[in-house]
């Protein structure tokens, strides 16, 4: 099963301040362990929210763009990993080994196909999607 590991922002990350060399080294070592164990699929750090934006949706057509930075620092995301592990406990066990000194890091399981069976028990949605795909394919062929 796949997990997203969500690292929250703090004042430093929001200020765009990079961690100092020792923190960087510890994190590199940790990432290396994850890679060597065949657990890490991906991992990225994010720029501060001052470089980001939000789009607010109201009703079918109204969209408002809100530029960063955003104030609720602890709720913001500063980075993430994608891990593939055997159980939720394994993800927790790996996370406990991360070289953080403070704050909280969250893990969330990523949906697999099996989770959608409940939403689409007859496969009707999937069939519709397939139909759409065939249309696109035909358009593509005509273009070629």
């Amino acid at each position, binding site marked *: 099963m796949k997990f997203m590991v969500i690292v929250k922002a703090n004042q430093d990350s929001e200020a765009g301040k990079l961690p100092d060399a020792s923190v960087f080294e510890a994190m590199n070592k940790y990432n290396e362990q994850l*890679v060597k164990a*065949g657990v890490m699929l991906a991992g990225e750090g994010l720029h501060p929210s001052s470089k980001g934006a939000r789009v607010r949706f109201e009703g079918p057509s109204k969209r408002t763009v809100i530029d960063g930075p955003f104030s609720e620092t602890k709720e913001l995301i500063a980075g993430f990993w994608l891990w*593939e592990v*055997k159980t939720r406990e394994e993800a927790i066990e*790996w996370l406990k080994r991360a070289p953080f000194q403070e704050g909280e890091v969250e893990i969330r399981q990523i949906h697999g196909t099996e989770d959608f069976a409940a939403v*689409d028990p007859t496969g009707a949605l999937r069939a519709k*999607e397939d139909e759409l795909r065939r249309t696109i394919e035909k358009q593509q062929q005509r273009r*070629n």
Partner: protein
Amino acid sequence: MATDPRRAIEAVWRIESPRLIAGLTRVVRDVGVAEELAQDALVAALEQWPSSGVPDNPGAWLMTTARHRGIDTLRRGALAGRKLEEVGQLEARREAEVPDLEKAIDEDVGDDLLRLILISCHPILSTEARVALTLRLLGGLTTGEIARAFLVPEPTIAQRIVRAKRTLAEEKVPFEVPRGAELQARLSSVLEVVYLVFNEGYSATAGDDWTRPELCQDALRLGRILAELAPEEPEVHGLVSLMEIQASRLRARTSPSGEPILLLDQNRALWDRILIGRGLAALERARALGGERGPYALQAAIAACHARARVAAETDWAQIASLYAELALRSPSPVVELNRAVAVGMAHGPAAGLALVEKLAQEPSLQGYHLLPSVRGDFLVKLGRLEEARAELERAASLTRNERERKLLLERAAACARRAVSSS
């Protein structure tokens, strides 16, 4: 959702056991003894951790416990006499290593892990034994999990593992990383085992489910670990690339009701882009090491052709056909030839593909292989030879051991029959 301490300990075991067993094997020079010691440490953890909590450095805790238990047990003579010599080794090493224990578990045990995976896949063992031992020692799977994955009774797997460990001990197989040509031969045995596990998950040869994704993930994990242990070996990256790209399609390969969906009919929006990206990167690594002509790298390159096509109609079949031609030169096999026929059929028309398939009709190793009549049936459908197509598809259905696939083939045969009637 509360965390069950037992499951937490199992998770620690999964993370730590390969390094633990590898490190212990280096000391006692016997995989069987090393695993027993590691198991003893696990039992101790299961007794103590639920009340004491998981220690800060669980790996070091398990290692210390395993060593102490080993020394105690051996001292009491509870184990067979043949292991007495190991007592001496353990004692000597304990004197030398105990102060550095914490450090030892943290330091790079990469070579030990590589030795462990090589010995688990040693050619002296049967393929089945290699698979079981590798999943057990490197994958951290329990005997029960392996048995369920391969749909065999648990005692059968337990027996295989016991016998494999005994064979390794009796034949005094060294715990080492050989050099040169021998390393190549040993590595290819490892790759074969890993890919076999993957394939059993990807298109289950038996049982009610078309795929068993858990096995694919176990194999992928082994492959990814191996790629870090032997980073200079192009074929390791070739195999990882092949598995990443194939696994990227797992979500798209089965309908919600469990029916198989063939490659060209799959919804490509369901393909896992992250795995495709990883697969293409691994293929690049194989190429950079000069290994683009390796059999796994070639198969990965073929898989990459499909992965790059946004829609099935964009597939570069001519390129795939030429990659198969190259693969047929490098590692000739009737199955490769059959796949080449499929690609040629797509690139140059069903008649060209059928001509290649006909040449395989007498191939002894393909008698009983359901994909031969299945592919032949495909070409015949496309050529409008519906009566012959129906017979071939029915024959394919009678040959497959997978229930889902049998159903799909019979449906297609029935469709041929209907079309034949309506056009006559």
